[in-house]
């Protein structure tokens, strides 16, 4: 109860900060504009002539690649730059509670933006009879993918007090997770690595797991994958923060 209360306190403060500064608004507006543009203009939503959201969900990984690190880069670097981390960690709150609280607040912003795309679901419903189960799975997968990218940003944000550095490192880390299963990458690896290594790297690809959700398959394996990525990244965040304090 107490630790939950502490997490909630931290999350509330973070949300307060997001909405007091332009960060939340800019993120939501840009996300919606870009997702609309890609879905309708590039993805050919209407030309497909099918009642599905494939042309909508296929852009999510690429948008998250740049937009999520932009939200996540400030999580800890801002805290260190302003010195407020000294306030935060001398309060009767564990570092772990602070990490989870901050993560959940940022994730809530991403979830809110995702929620605001619901009109597109209504559009599809109006125009045809889509597989609502698949659409629901797609949203779940998208939310998990956003969380995974965000947890990686949290980790890179803890590494540097410079937000630009944290942004770039985060984008590269997310990109490598997205591209891990991409044929050109696996082909490149095949030239020198043993097959089991290639497969292991490909298994880390968020795309295969994300695609499973898009097909409407709610497999516990994919679910666990994303949860593990988040747990690992947040745990690493705590290790990095402890490392800073230990000097």
């Amino acid at each position, binding site marked *: 109860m*107490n630790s939950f*209360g*502490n997490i909630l*306190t*931290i999350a*509330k*403060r973070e949300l*307060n*900060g997001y909405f*007091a*500064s332009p960060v939340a608004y800019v993120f939501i507006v840009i996300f919606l504009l870009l997702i609309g543009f890609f879905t309708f203009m590039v993805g050919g939503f209407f030309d497909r002539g099918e009642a599905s959201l494939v042309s909508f969900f296929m852009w999510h990984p690429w948008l998250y690649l740049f937009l999520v690190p932009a939200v996540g880069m400030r999580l800890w670097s801002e805290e260190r730059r*302003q*010195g*407020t981390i*000294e*306030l935060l*960690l*001398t*309060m*009767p*709150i*564990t570092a772990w509670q602070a990490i989870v609280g901050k993560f959940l607040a940022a994730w809530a912003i991403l979830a809110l933006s995702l929620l605001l795309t619901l009109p597109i679901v209504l559009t599809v419903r109006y125009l045809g009879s889509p597989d609502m189960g698949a659409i629901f799975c797609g949203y779940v997968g998208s939310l998990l993918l956003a969380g995974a990218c965000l947890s990686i940003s949290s980790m890179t944000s803890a590494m540097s007090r410079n937000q630009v550095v944290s942004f770039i490192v985060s984008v590269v880390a997310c990109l490598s997770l997205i591209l891990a299963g991409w044929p050109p990458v696996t082909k490149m690896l095949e030239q020198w690595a043993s097959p089991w290594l290639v497969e292991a790297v490909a298994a880390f690809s968020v795309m295969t797991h994300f695609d499973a959700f898009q097909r409407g398959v709610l497999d516990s394996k994919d679910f666990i994958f994303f949860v593990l990525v988040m747990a690992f990244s947040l745990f690493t965040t705590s290790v990095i923060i402890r490392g800073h*304090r*230990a*000097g």
Partner: protein
Amino acid sequence: MIKIQDLTKNFGPKTAVNGISFTVERGEVLGFLGPNGAGKSTTMRMVTGFIPPTSGRIQTGEYDMLAQPIQAKRLIGYLPENAPLYSDMTVHGFLSFAAEARGLRGGERQKAVARAIELCFLERVVHQSIDTLSKGYRHRACFAQAIIHDPPILIMDEPTDGLDPNQKFEMRSLIRRMGEKKTIIFSTHILEEVDAACTRAIVIDHGRIVANGTPAELKRQAEGAGTVLIRVAGLTAAALRQTLDPLAAARKTAIVEETPGGVCARVFPQTKDSDGALARALFEIAVKSSWKLEELHTEEGRLDEVFRAITLSDTAKEGRQ
């Protein structure tokens, strides 16, 4: 209330704090003195649980900071150096957050916020965003955060740094007032502050304690402590010297200035702890010889002299090695 034992902190090969031990009781205001880079901030950061020590023990109240950090941190209010704040919040929002993080909920929280705002004179800026505040207000907002849960222990890293003279005065009297009921540690490199607010002072240099005592005890170590300044009208230096030279309590007499109107001299005592005996002896002589006495007082010794003597000699030693 606070008990520090053999506290040591290494940053890589560099030792920032080297085996510091001290205790502070309730009702004490401990001034932490030392040149920049002496290890004051590092020590405070360890005591507040922000950074773990390389070795040593920190006991706050009945809790060990390393074994039970959450319980120990509850007892402490902390004002870090440069008063960091969440600049995107309003003062009220920030204090509400601080109160909530300290476990205060509902009406209790509102009462705590209102009390802190009143104590720190923040009424005028309550709903202002923190990044629009002046330095004085920023400092007070951060101080308000430190006292929001009425902690028994208050730790402040340079609480008067960057304030104007009026604000400094206000802050010192606040510290003194709170010190009656709390345990307070604050660091400073302004020596007059020690006199104005502390019941005890610790001087650290190169990560070690080099002096520990009440401000009066420290001052007694000064070169000029215990000397008596005497000014007599209508007397020549030679006449003064002639009268004072046979005096047993005086070691020597140095003339400060001689004018046609009179003479001013500094008389050094035979022993430092004369407790005003020298001044009394001089007064008797003055009465007996019917001098027109204009001034007579025993010098207390000056803290900055002591501070320089302690820390400079150490720095010099280090430099020679």
